[in-house]
């Protein structure tokens, strides 16, 4: 007889409803069957009733955490359909807000991860620092979490001088705070006890399992869409992908910690290079054709497929979100770990169920 327990959907360590049926033997997982659908709303059907513009707001609410990048990716995909160039300033604003979004998302994740292994004070510390980022985002966009920065044709809000000063000031404090956090995440004995060597995925395995983002880079694969051609702006900003070799939870954590510095650097560079000019081009007509747009969200590559048919409403919108790509790897990493590690391993892929199920 083994232990069979439901793990989720409502479970204190899972901020989001997903369920795993865990089979355990002597506190070690021998089988895990995920159960999805608790956050399935049916967003891809939405385009039937909403026009392509309104769909932006829906895409932002696929998930409240990397909401900015969802909006940006969607609008860029639609812009591909329209085949328009958008002003450079708008691109820079998107990058700045997108990276700010990544900073808050990674801080958020680090906190929840700490909570996952019962390190409450560290969790609080991360979330405390994150508030500064949110304040800045609120000043820029008018909302703490769902930012609506991007609209088809450009950016919806401009960056003022005041904003820029705020950002730079905030970045200085946050950078030093991240240094403090880094010490704990990288050096704390108990944290290392819980993460080093846990749920290791080899480079090959992580790649073939289709993982993306920090999960993939944590296994030593150099893959970050910010280096992709659609995003040549990042090249100007001196972007370097963060890659760690070990493939365990510890190296996935490290990837995220170091990406924080990378994002901070990118924002600073973007601000220093921010061009002047318009923030949006007017868009006329209706989208036609099909396009795939990919960006690197905090959790990894997101794939937007849009197809227009010449009406205001799109014909098909398909979103492959990062967590969707990362979840199958759990089937490979969960068996053989201790029950106590299940939340940690689940959290290291930084799961966002709401985007997985849409």
């Amino acid at each position, binding site marked *: 007889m083994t232990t069979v327990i439901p793990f989720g959907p409502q479970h204190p360590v899972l*901020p989001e409803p997903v369920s795993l049926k865990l089979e355990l033997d002597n506190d070690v997982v021998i089988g895990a069957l995920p159960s999805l659908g608790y956050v399935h709303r049916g967003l891809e059907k939405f385009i039937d*009733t909403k026009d392509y513009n309104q769909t932006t707001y829906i895409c932002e609410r696929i998930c*409240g955490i990397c909401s900015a990048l969802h909006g940006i990716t969607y609008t860029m995909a639609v812009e591909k359909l329209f085949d328009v160039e958008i002003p450079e300033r708008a691109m820079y604003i998107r990058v700045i807000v997108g990276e700010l979004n990544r900073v808050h998302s990674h801080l958020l994740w680090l906190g929840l991860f700490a909570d996952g292994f019962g390190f409450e004070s560290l969790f609080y510390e991360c979330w405390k620092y994150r508030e500064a980022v949110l304040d800045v985002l609120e000043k820029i966009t008018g909302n703490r*979490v*769902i930012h609506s920065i991007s609209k088809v044709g450009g950016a919806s809000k401009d960056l003022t001088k005041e904003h820029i000063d705020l950002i730079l000031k905030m970045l200085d404090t946050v950078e030093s705070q991240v240094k403090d956090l880094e010490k704990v995440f990288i050096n704390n004995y108990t944290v290392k006890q819980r993460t080093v060597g846990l749920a290791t995925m080899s480079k090959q395995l992580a790649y073939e399992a289709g993982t993306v983002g920090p999960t993939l880079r944590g296994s030593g694969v150099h893959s970050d869409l910010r280096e992709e051609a659609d995003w040549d702006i990042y090249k100007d900003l001196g972007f370097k992908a963060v890659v760690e070799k070990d493939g365990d939870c510890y190296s996935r954590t490290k990837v995220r910690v170091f990406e924080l510095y990378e994002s901070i650097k990118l924002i600073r560079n973007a601000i220093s290079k921010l061009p002047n000019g318009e923030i949006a081009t007017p868009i006329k007509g209706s989208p036609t054709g099909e396009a795939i747009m990919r960006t690197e969200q905090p959790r990894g590559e997101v794939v937007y497929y849009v197809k227009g048919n010449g009406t205001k409403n799109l014909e098909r919108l398909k979103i492959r979100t990062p967590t969707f790509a990362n979840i199958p790897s759990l089937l490979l990493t969960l068996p053989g770990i201790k029950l106590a590690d299940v939340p940690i391993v689940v959290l290291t892929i930084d799961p966002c169920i709401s985007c997985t199920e849409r």
Partner: protein
Amino acid sequence: MTLAKSPWIIHVNVNSCNGCDIEVVACLTPLYDAERFGVLNIGTPKQADIMVVTGSVNYKNVNVLKNLYNQVPDPKVVLAVGACASTGGIFHDCYNVIGGVDQVIPVDAYVPGCCPRPEAILDGVVAALSILENKKKGNVKGKEVKMKGNEVPSNA
């Protein structure tokens, strides 16, 4: 007044986009520190007083919501946080969305916003406290919410 001094909450995320969730969690973090009011995010319905629900209800989580509601001991208060939980919000006419939380379980207070600010959620919690006291005084029991029945194919 003791009930109102120790509100333990269970956070139930049904169909939320995480926007509301992270704000609920943010309420507990140092800047807002809901524990000042005695709030503990207790995690199990059996020990909770306030059920904080985020997101709308869909066909898969409707049972979950009902079960959890039934497992919160009386007196209990349900707080619907966010546009989704209140009315279905932007997703109200998605095919898999039943609607706001009040379609399934009785809701005592609503928090507006998409997503609501932590301050708004704290307001909601504070509003819940007096409701909790009143329910105890009036000995109001939450009705057992019945399952609609077979959520499973017969061949399972």
